[in-house]
């Protein structure tokens, strides 16, 4: 029982990181109708910058800010420099360019920083806290949980309570009508990329200390999980990304804990297969979103 509590609570913390990353994929999909396969590679570049900042200054807060800013800037660069020029009638060209970008970024990183894993020390302790005698989250997991929740709530408020969010939502689903109402739609697409890539960078930054360390491929598994989650929840649904992330996080944690770490990716793929068989559009997709 104690073990179950530990695994579930750790799974929730990991799941929120997956949810954050999935949310970043949903934001780009809604803004630009592109599944950004380069999201993890871009986020890893931002985290390398954050790593360098932490080494130079010793400050985790500065590193966190550096990851967010670099992520946002990379988002602008990729959208303005690449994606804007391949936007077509179908999402396919953008996806192919994104896959090409993954190769370019990962190879360049490999040349610049080498293949070794660079350990990142977590800002807080990784040993579990106890509620009575039951081990639950570590301090670091708790930190991840709080940061992820703050970002999710913040994004929710931004999209639903501000005029910027109103414009972002409107231009995502009705670009022409939005332009007729005075919304600068291309700028909204850029803002979407900025937000999305900053969130993705944050997710990878939160994840790396709990893994082997920083490497050009540190975001790959996270991307696979988050992509699964985004498809599970429906690419149009922020709520789906959140719930799906938690489900996948807890599933991975339980399978890893009770069976083996090697089985976890299989469990995620099995889940994906079952959901796609039952609801091809995703659990949370609305009819409108599916036909859009």
């Amino acid at each position, binding site marked *: 029982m104690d073990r179950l509590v530990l695994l579930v609570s750790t799974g929730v913390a990991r799941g929120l990181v997956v949810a954050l990353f999935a949310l970043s994929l949903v934001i780009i999909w809604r803004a630009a109708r592109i599944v950004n396969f380069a999201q993890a590679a871009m986020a890893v570049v931002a985290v390398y910058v954050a790593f360098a900042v932490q080494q130079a200054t010793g400050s985790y807060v500065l590193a966190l800010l550096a990851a967010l800013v670099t992520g946002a800037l990379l988002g602008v660069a990729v959208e303005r420099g690449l994606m804007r020029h391949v936007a077509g009638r179908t999402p396919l060209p953008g996806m192919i360019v994104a896959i090409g970008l993954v190769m370019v970024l990962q190879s360049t990183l490999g040349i610049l920083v080498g293949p070794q894993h660079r350990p990142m020390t977590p800002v807080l302790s990784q040993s579990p806290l106890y509620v009575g005698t039951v081990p639950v989250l570590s301090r670091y997991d708790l930190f991840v949980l709080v940061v992820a929740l703050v970002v999710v709530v913040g994004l929710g408020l931004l999209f639903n309570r501000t005029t910027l969010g*109103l414009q972002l939502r409107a231009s995502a689903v009705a670009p022409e009508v939005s332009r007729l*109402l005075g919304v600068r739609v291309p700028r909204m697409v850029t803002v979407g990329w900025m937000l999305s890539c900053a969130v993705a960078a944050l997710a990878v930054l939160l994840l790396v200390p709990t893994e082997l360390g920083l490497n050009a491929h540190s975001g790959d598994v996270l991307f696979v999980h988050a992509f699964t989650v985004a498809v599970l929840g429906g690419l149009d649904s922020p709520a789906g990304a959140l719930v799906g992330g938690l489900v996948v996080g807890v599933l991975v944690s339980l399978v890893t804990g009770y069976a083996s770490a090697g089985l976890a990716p299989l469990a995620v793929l099995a889940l994906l297969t079952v959901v796609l068989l039952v609801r091809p559009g995703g659990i949370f997709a609305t009819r*409108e979103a599916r036909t859009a």
Partner: protein
Amino acid sequence: MTAALAVDGLVVGYAGAPVVDGMTLEIAPGAVVALLGANGAGKTTVLRTLSGLLTPRAGRVLLDGDDLGAVSVEDRSRRGLAQVPEGRSVVAELTVEENLQLGALWRRPGRAERRAAVDEMYGMFEPLARRRASAGHQLSGGERQMLALARALISRPRVLLLDEPSLGLAPRVVAQLFAVLRAAADATGLTVLLAEQNVTSALSIADRGVVLGLGQVVADAPATDLAADPALRHAYLGF
């Protein structure tokens, strides 16, 4: 007096077969003009060119005397040229309230002024007030068109372009919608260009009717004359 909206030698479309071919038109401030013509006469093309969605091959569009040639769609809207496009132009994912807020964003700055503007629209369109929290896709056809009109009026435009607002609506709903439109024009001095297939309804609220045929103005007369002249009606409007 400077025309509120002027079109000068407008040519739009592909080489060889322009959809609009040398159209010239001036609309005085505060006038309600019906733009008539058969299917394919170029009404929608004209409106989409005026709002900047299409780029003309030749000719000019002037808003209060200012050439709009280099002005983007977004900036035309912010300058007070509003368009209600054909069909379901309501943002289906947003609520009635959010659609209205979006319409008010640029020309009714400030949270308090926007609130007042939205409430003013609820006063004008009572069915919308009852459905303020409903998403656009939950509305009936009449409610959607009402919302599209309210969302255009809320920005207090100088010129309003409407593309077939009566499409698919019951006659009683069309009559209500057009009555509100006429009242808004009279109350605020709004200039209206109303593209319509529904000739009788359009002429009943218009000051003037302009008939398009093969991309050119083939008739231009006071609405009452156009409605009363059987020869004109028969030749250009087919009834």
